[in-house]
């Protein structure tokens, strides 16, 4: 079965959305989505690593002996994450400061290693790049939506623009609100996609 490049990208958005369908990478999802901007930055950071590591792994996979493939993949992923860290520190220090610990943690994000194992090591470089782009975009969109919902309910603002004076429902900015908002979004996502399937 050969899927078109376009399909490769769109499947990451809906059918195999990493957050709403595969439920992968929950740690950064819950922790960094206190606002829409934070969620989007985290998503874009993961997208960057995902596309590059998918391409590098797809290109090198035929030469890597089977038994050491996981350590080799992790080194490749860690190298891209560190590069990203340097770049963010240099050019977007404010975002780097808010995301802080979660940037190095992209190394152990199961989405990235998962795509390397499940897709990149069996497919061509271009297909793997498309797959990384699709999954990365799906992750970014999911995190932005979750961040937006939490920001709207929790602080009454969207992308940093305040609509109401004072505070919103504070719990949504805190950790329990992340779980609640994510749960409702998954329900909503399932309902919408189930209708489409009929």
């Amino acid at each position, binding site marked *: 079965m050969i899927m078109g490049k376009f399909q490769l990208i769109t499947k990451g958005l809906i059918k195999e959305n990493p957050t709403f369908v595969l439920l992968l990478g929950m740690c950064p999802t819950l922790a960094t989505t*206190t606002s829409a901007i934070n969620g989007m930055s985290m998503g874009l950071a993961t997208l960057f690593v995902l596309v590059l590591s998918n391409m590098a792994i797809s290109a*090198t*996979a*035929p*030469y*890597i*002996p*089977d*038994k*050491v*493939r996981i*350590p*080799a993949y992790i*080194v*490749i992923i*860690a*190298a891209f994450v*560190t*590069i990203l860290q*340097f*770049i963010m*520190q*240099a*050019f977007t*220090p404010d975002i780097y400061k808010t995301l802080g610990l979660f940037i190095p943690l992209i190394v152990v994000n199961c989405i990235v290693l998962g795509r390397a194992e499940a897709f990149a*090591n*069996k497919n061509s470089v271009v297909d793997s790049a498309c797959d990384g782009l699709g999954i990365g975009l799906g992750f970014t969109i999911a995190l932005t939506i979750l961040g937006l919902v939490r920001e709207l309910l*929790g*602080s009454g603002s969207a992308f940093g623009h305040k609509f109401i004076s004072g*505070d919103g429902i*504070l719990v949504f*900015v*805190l950790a329990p609100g992340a779980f609640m908002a994510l749960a409702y979004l998954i329900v909503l996502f399932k309902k919408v996609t189930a209708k489409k399937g009929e």
Partner: protein
Amino acid sequence: MAVQSSFKNMTLCLFAVCIVSSALLAAVYAVTKEPIEVAEHAKTINAIAQVVPEFDGEPVSDTIEVAGKKYPYYAVSKAGQPAGYAVTVSASGYGGALTLMVGVTADRVIYNTTVLSQSETPGLGAKCTEPEFADQFRNWNPAEKVLKVRKDGGDVDAITASTITSRAYSLAVETAVTVYDAIVAENNKGE
């Protein structure tokens, strides 16, 4: 699928992957080293400029030891006269260390304060970064007003439901004044 694993090719492969990755990292590090330093420097200068009155030239960085603890501070001057000091202090808040930069003018009045880092509860203690709370320390004269929250008999208006954060903030500012006195004492001794 992939190559048959043998001791030799596994070692070689991991070695090659590591060498290439480190070479790549070294290159990116070399390129971004300068912008990172510039960004960090700009951040410090910005924080200093917020808490002290107008100054000229570069702030002079130094540290002083007060009661066994080391405090980094920056001295700024205008037209050759000392204009004030920006002191970095921290106190433990509700969710960890609360680090402030406090500017004290040459006549021992607090010019302004800014939060360098905090991990207080969002919506409660984290409000200490907002002007509603932080602005009360502007032009605060420690000789006239007591740096304690009202509950403890001082003059600081605490954030509602965040007394611990407010206490930590007041304590940090108070420490900055102590550090300021130590700096002045040391300068006088030197003359």
